[in-house]
Every structure is written in C-alpha cells, then in structure tokens.
C-alpha cells in the first residue's frame, strides 16, 4: 500500500491553511499537486542544464538534449513499450488529440466517413472531431451510457460499421469514474479497419497503463494530472503511424532540409515537435514518472480504490445525496461526482471552500454528459496518492454543513 503519511510530506503545498482550516485538496482530477522531487527537478534543470536542445554543440546543449530525450524513453517504458520514437510531447492531452485529428484525420477521412465517440467524453475529445467533421464532411456518431453509468457497449458495437474510420473514447471518465474497456472497443474498431484513439488523461495518473494490452492506436495524456508540471502532454502512437502522417505544425526542429519553396521533414517524433518545446517541464515530468513508479502503479490503484470506497460509503449516508457513476469502487477511478437535494454544486463548492476543502463544481468540460444526466452541473471530489480518509471526513463535515444551510425543514440560514 501507499504510505500516505510519508507521501504527504513530499507535497509542500498541502502544508497550508485555507480559510482558517488545513487545506484538503480533492480536485486532483482537474490537476494534481506536485511533489518536491518534481519541483526540485525543475529548479535543478534551470540551475545546471538549461540550453536549447537538438542543435547546440556545446556541453549544456548536449546535457539538456540528453535529459529531454531520456524522459521520452521513460514515458515509453511507463506505457510498457520500448520505442521512444513513438512518443510525441505536446502541450497537453487536448493538443495531442488535435494532432491526431489534424495530422491523421485530414488525410484519412472524407465525406460520409464516420467518427464514433461517446456521450461521456470530455470536450477535448469532442471538439477536435467536430472540427475534423466540418473540414471533411465526416459524420459524428455518439454511443450512450447505461443507467449503471457504464458505456453502452451494444450501442458502440452497433455504431461501428464499414464507414467508421476512427473511434475515440476516454479510458476513464473524469465525471463518472467509469473505466472503459478500451481493449474490447479497439477490437471492434480494428474489425472494420478503423483506428482507436484512447484519451488517457484520467487513467494514466491512476492505473497501470500498458498501451499494447489496451490495443489502442493512439494514447493521449497529460503530465499535470500525474504529479508533473503543466504544459506537457503526451501522444503515443502505434508503430508506423507517425511515419505515415504529415506534420501538424511547421517550424524549427521539425525539418530536415528547408528550401525556398518547400522543405523535408525531420524523422519521427521530431517532425511533430515544431519549435523549442517545453524542455524544463518535460525534464521535471520525468521526475513525476519516477515518483509514481517508485510507489508502483498497482499500489497507487489499490490506494485510490480504498479511499474511493470509503468516500462512497460515507457520502451515501448523507440525506438527499446521490452519487453518479458505477456503484462498485473497483469499477471506477478515484472521482466521486454527486448531487445534493436543493443545493447547487457552486453553493456546495463555496461552503466546502469555507472548510478548506477544495472540490470541483461545474460541467467538468462534459456538457453532453451533463445533458444525459439531466443536471446543469455536478460537484466532484477526486483523489490522489496524498489523500487519506481524514480528507473524506473533512468533506463530510462540509457536506453536513451544506445540509444545515440548504436542507429541507430548516429555516435557519447558517449554524
């Protein structure tokens, strides 16, 4: 198991008081906090190694290039694969998905071709495909959700057909916590010659992810949700796919030879990394991967199932509170979205903030899902390795306060 007390000591940000209470951070699905090891790596890079990469001859340029490229290898091995060249660094998951929709989609989709998505997708896995459809005349198809909060696999199967060119699905829902069976859906896609894109923004930080077992063709995720710095995303592509694609952005570092009228491209993955990349943050992302792998992703997962189970058990005891998503903690990630009778999620989040408890309230960039659930917004608590049951207890105290303010039968505004 994860030794949470030891882990917490590595996160300087947690040692503070917010609105008179110790900070309880339950918004890791939005962005995780960063351990001292990651912050130190960032500072150390700037203090000892800073230079531009891939072109300098001098010592620092070589050192910076080596550190940056080492993280590419580390990222590949985190995903269970051996080819660093299949890993492209982007700004975030959103940019990684846009890269696929542009660089692969524009060349491979035409009028009447179909893109299969689901109603639980994050906007980052909807809008790039809408834009692709608008450019090419392709058509969007959406699979629905069962009453139990899982993806309706029969619908997915029914939607995938001879015109399907790409299926793009989130691995883990940022609202419901649902873990989607990517391998099974990849098989359906491959049976009709379509590609499977997996949005791993929520899964990579919390589950052991082996892209080859998942069977996906592209896997996208972000450093900042997995203890690393903001500004770094990853796109992994199955062998050969990147080679077959034209560049997404043009500029320095992505070319081989530049002539007046045209240029030739650098080899993969560099042809997809135009301009000076986010070198320092990539280097520090390496420290985040080291941190997670030292804990072990299996242990991370076990810890988060345990705290999610405790949270679901505790929260269900609150009168008028309803939890969205699968009922069994084993079937979901460490996010718990919920409704409370009369209190709007923004009121819940404000009252929680008054207790020093940071939760998310809103549509979570999933308006299609909100419409499906029939709510304008939800409240969401999400967990990471530095959360313990005391954090859930602090949330419970805040939610009981919400019921005292808004609950039926009480005419008193506040306690």
């Amino acid at each position, binding site marked *: 198991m994860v030794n949470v007390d030891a882990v917490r000591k590595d996160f300087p940000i947690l040692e503070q008081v917010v609105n008179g*209470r110790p900070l309880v951070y339950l918004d890791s699905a939005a962005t995780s906090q960063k351990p001292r090891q990651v912050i130190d790596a960032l500072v150390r890079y700037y203090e000892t190694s800073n230079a531009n990469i891939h072109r300098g001859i001098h010592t620092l340029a070589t050192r910076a290039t080596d550190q940056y490229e080492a993280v590419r290898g580390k990222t590949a091995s985190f995903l269970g694969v051996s080819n660093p060249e299949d890993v492209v660094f982007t700004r975030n998951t959103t940019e990684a998905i846009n890269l696929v929709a542009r660089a692969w989609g524009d060349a491979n989709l035409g009028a009447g071709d179909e893109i299969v998505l689901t109603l639980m997708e994050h906007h980052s896995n909807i809008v790039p495909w809408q834009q692709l459809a608008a450019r090419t005349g392709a058509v969007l198809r959406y699979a629905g959700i069962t009453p139990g909060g899982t993806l309706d696999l029969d619908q997915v199967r029914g939607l995938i057909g001879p015109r399907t060119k790409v299926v793009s699905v989130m691995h883990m829902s940022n609202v419901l916590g649902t873990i989607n069976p990517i391998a099974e859906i990849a098989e359906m896609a491959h049976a009709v010659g379509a590609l499977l894109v997996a949005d791993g923004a929520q899964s990579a930080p919390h589950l052991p992810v082996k892209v080859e077992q998942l069977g996906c063709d592209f896997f996208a995720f972000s450093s900042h949700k997995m203890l690393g710095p903001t500004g770094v995303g990853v796109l992994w592509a199955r062998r050969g796919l990147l080679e077959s694609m034209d560049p997404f952005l043009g500029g320095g570092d992505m070319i081989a030879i530049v002539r007046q009228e045209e240029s030739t491209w650098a080899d993969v993955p560099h042809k997809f990394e135009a301009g000076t990349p986010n070198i320092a943050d990539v280097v520090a992302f390496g420290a985040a991967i080291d941190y997670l792998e030292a804990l072990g992703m299996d242990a991370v997962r076990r810890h988060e199932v345990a705290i999610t189970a405790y949270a679901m058990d505790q929260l269900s005891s609150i009168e008028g509170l309803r939890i969205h998503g699968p009922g069994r903690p084993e079937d979901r990630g460490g996010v718990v979205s919920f409704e409370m009778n009369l209190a709007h999620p923004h009121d819940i989040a*404000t009252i929680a903030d*008054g*207790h020093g408890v940071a939760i998310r309230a809103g549509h979570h960039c999933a308006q299609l899902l909100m419409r499906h659930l029939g709510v304008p*917004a939800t409240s969401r608590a999400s967990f990471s390795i530095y959360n313990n049951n005391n954090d859930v207890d602090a949330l419970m105290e805040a939610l009981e306060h919400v019921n005292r303010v808004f609950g039926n039968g009480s005419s008193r505004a506040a306690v």
Partner: protein
Amino acid sequence: MAAPEPQFDDLYREIILDHYRRPRNRGELAEPTQRVEGVNPVCGDEIHLDLDIEDGTIRDLSFWGSGCSISQSSASMLTDRLKGCPVEEAERVMQKVRAMLMEGADPDAEIGDLEALEGVAKLPVRVKCALLSWNVLQEGIRQATTAA
C-alpha cells in the same frame, strides 16, 4: 482540536435562501415589451427576464432560469425591488448594487433587501453569479430605451 468556525457563513443569509426557495415574480409576463436572457458560460447559470416598460416605468417584470442560490436569489430580489419603479430609479439601484458587489461599497439604503448580497463581494468567483440578472436587466433597459 477545536476547528475555527467555517468561513462564508454570512454569504448564505436567510433572506437569500428564502428568495432561492420561494422565488418572487417567477414565470413569464403575458405581454412583455422586452424579453431578455443571459447565460454564464462558465457555470451554466441562466436568467430570463420579461419586462413591461412603458412611459419610463417598469410596470411589471418577471424572471425564470436555473442556477445557484446566489444567481437565482439575486434575480428574485431584483424583481421584488424594481416592480413599478421608474427606469431612472432602476438604473440607480443597479449602479449601487454593482458598486457593492464589484467595489465592496457599503450597501446603500436604496437597494433594500439586496444588501443581503453584500457577503458575495468577498468572493470574486461568485460575484458573476449575483451580477447575472443585473446584466440582463441592463440589456433590457437598453433595448427599451433604444426602441422608445
């Protein structure tokens, strides 16, 4: 360990919760001179306002919408305060509510019950909730004045 009292208790005053639970002037007007709406895209809060403005007076007004207690109670109190008011007075009240919410000015006696929203000024992320219906009103008055 005795934890300090939770913050923001002064935000959810009884009058706010009362307007949230039992909104005044909720629904549509039969024959509004202006029908205006506003949405806060960040949180999805929605306010629709029907106005009956004639001869420089808000003869009647009503609202409907969805959202948090702050946005909905602010709209309810707005209708309560401004029904039957000259447009000039409505604009003055609007300006004073804005001053309280955005600049932290002391509530002016003229705004009446709306002084209950004073606590919102301390929470910048919630100020937009309280302002939503006032922005909608401003647009309605603008349309009425332009049409006149």
